[in-house]
């Protein structure tokens, strides 16, 4: 092929339309406190929390091959971090959220040092052990109510904002801001050098190593980052609940099982997957949650069927059928039109994972 002008792009037609649509949707969601009531706001904030948790789990399991079934460790640590920092440290709740994230990041380094000794599937169960250790340790903290937990003191609640409505607004906006930040950071990360390294490791670890990718360092970075993000979401979840207990904070069902089901149903290893999954999950929950155990069994069954029949998830089916990508991650070489007879075609630089 003759030398010709070319440049590299990630954008597609769908992604350009997507950017406009996302901007409009964000504007509407930011204005939601003036458009709807407290119950809906609280539901939306829950949706944001699950979207953020699923996005982080997806980054870990779908993109980095670190299949953790112990992310509830970090949700719980973040929640307990918020309570400890505000009650004992006197921090403002909104200041305590990033500090709780930083504490989790610090704790994640030695935890990763231990867990990375376990390969593949055993890493998964090891991550669960860590969550169990944290749950048992939390129930030994008598100053935070031991096994039965505690409520956020009135003075801390009042320090968020003066009126109940203002508090609801403040918590809602911080949840929205946090999920947007986590999504933006994840997309940026996956499009950066780190993302290329992750994709290389995912496709062929040996080849990645021989091309100079520092696998251990990349994995540690992703693990610590997701722990911090997950803990910040955990802090926000329990700021909204105003009450914490070891069983609620370190709940494997709430913070790991549901998060995994959301990601699997939406599409593992795709940015759009958790967004689609969270919508499906909340539609099912709002309509079927009264069924209790039957609903949970159905959720488990749907996740198994998706994994067996359509492992690319709901979004994967849509994307593969119509070739749409709202958030494209792959780079494509675009040739300039200067060469006569050569169409300005886009050639994919790398195959899909």
């Amino acid at each position, binding site marked *: 092929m003759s030398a010709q002008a070319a440049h590299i792009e990630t954008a597609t037609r769908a992604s350009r339309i997507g950017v406009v649509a996302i901007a409009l949707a964000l504007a509407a969601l930011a204005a939601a406190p003036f458009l709807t009531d407290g119950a809906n706001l609280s539901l939306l904030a829950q949706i944001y929390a699950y979207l953020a948790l699923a996005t982080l789990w997806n980054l870990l399991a779908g993109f980095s091959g670190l299949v953790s079934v112990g992310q509830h460790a970090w949700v719980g640590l973040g929640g307990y971090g918020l309570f400890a920092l505000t009650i004992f440290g006197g921090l403002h709740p909104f200041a305590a959220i990033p500090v709780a994230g930083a504490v989790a990041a610090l704790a994640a380094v030695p935890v990763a040092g231990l867990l990375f000794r*376990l390969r593949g599937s055993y890493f998964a169960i090891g991550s669960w052990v860590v969550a169990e250790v944290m749950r048992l340790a939390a129930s030994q903290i008598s100053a935070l109510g031991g096994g039965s937990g505690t409520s956020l003191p009135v003075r801390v609640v009042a320090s968020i904002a003066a009126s109940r409505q203002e508090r609801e607004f403040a918590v809602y906006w911080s949840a929205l801001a946090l999920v947007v930040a986590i999504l933006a950071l994840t997309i940026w990360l996956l499009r950066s050098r780190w993302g290329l390294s992750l994709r290389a490791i995912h496709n062929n670890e040996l080849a990645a190593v021989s091309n100079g990718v520092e696998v251990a360092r990349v994995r540690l970075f992703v693990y610590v980052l997701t722990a911090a993000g997950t803990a910040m979401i955990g802090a926000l979840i329990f700021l909204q609940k105003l009450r914490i207990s070891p069983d609620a904070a370190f709940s494997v069902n709430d913070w790991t099982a549901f998060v995994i089901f959301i990601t699997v149903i939406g599409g593992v290893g795709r940015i759009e997957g958790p967004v689609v999954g969270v919508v499906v999950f909340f539609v099912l929950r709002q309509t079927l949650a009264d069924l209790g155990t039957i609903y949970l069994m159905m959720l*488990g069954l749907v996740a198994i069927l998706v994994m067996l029949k359509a492992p690319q998830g709901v979004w994967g089916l849509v994307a593969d059928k119509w070739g749409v990508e709202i958030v494209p991650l792959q780079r494509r070489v675009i040739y300039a039109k200067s060469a006569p007879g050569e169409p300005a075609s886009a050639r994919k630089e790398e195959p899909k994972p």
Partner: protein
Amino acid sequence: MDWLNSIVQGVLVGGLYALFAAGLSLIFGVMRLVNIAHGDLIVLAAYLALATTQTLGVGPLGSLLVIVPLMALIGYTLQRFVLNRTLGEDLLPPLLVTFGLSVILQNGLLQVFTADSRKLQAGLIETASIPIAEGLSLGVLPLLQFIVAVAVIAGLQALFYNTPMGRAFRATSDDPSTAQLVGLDNRHVFGLAMALSLAVTAVAGVFLGVRANFDPSIGPARLIFGFEAVIIGGLGNLWGTLAGGIILGVAQAVGAKLDPGWQLLAGHLAFLFILAIRPQGLFPRVQD
């Protein structure tokens, strides 16, 4: 003597943990599958034993005659129709499918048997004990459970190294495609391995149910105990797994002696400690 008593009881409980672990270790050895629903299958076996004792009027040990073949059948079916489809290079499908299965089992048991604590009644044997010395006595039931655990592990060891079925397991484990070339049907071999794993699970479930109360939510903790015993003992070594179970049992007993709230924590910390100083386990056999 108080301490010696605690440690001896810990060793005997370790036998039960080795039973939890043996089934887990077996399927990992044969097909590199980690079954997250393993603990819930142990609890399922306990509930099936409960139903059997109630309907047939047999004791818990008698119910083994029904439960062991039943669980083996469930294992073979599960492997052939569901889990075989998840095996491959990718880690996610087997993990997520067994995770989904775990949620289904827990909630299914909750739906059928409610959240009430249940127990298998074994009669007089439960309280019988053999006095060894002043302040130290061995319960007949824990002793029986330990002996059964040792017998199960010896049996599995013999099966692996002295029978055609064991040869098929080892061949498939070493190189699945060559095993197929020489006429083994991997799908069937994997089915048999899971059947054997759940047969061991059935024994574990019955002893779990006789020893203490159980309810639908306790499965994951049993999975974790079994997993810790496997890692402490070293992958692929069944006798190592027994040692791992004993270490875990003793650590928990010592923790409980210090403070009742530290029982489980002490076990987990012992596991993390061994992971830190000897990540390959105490007696490793295979590398993975």
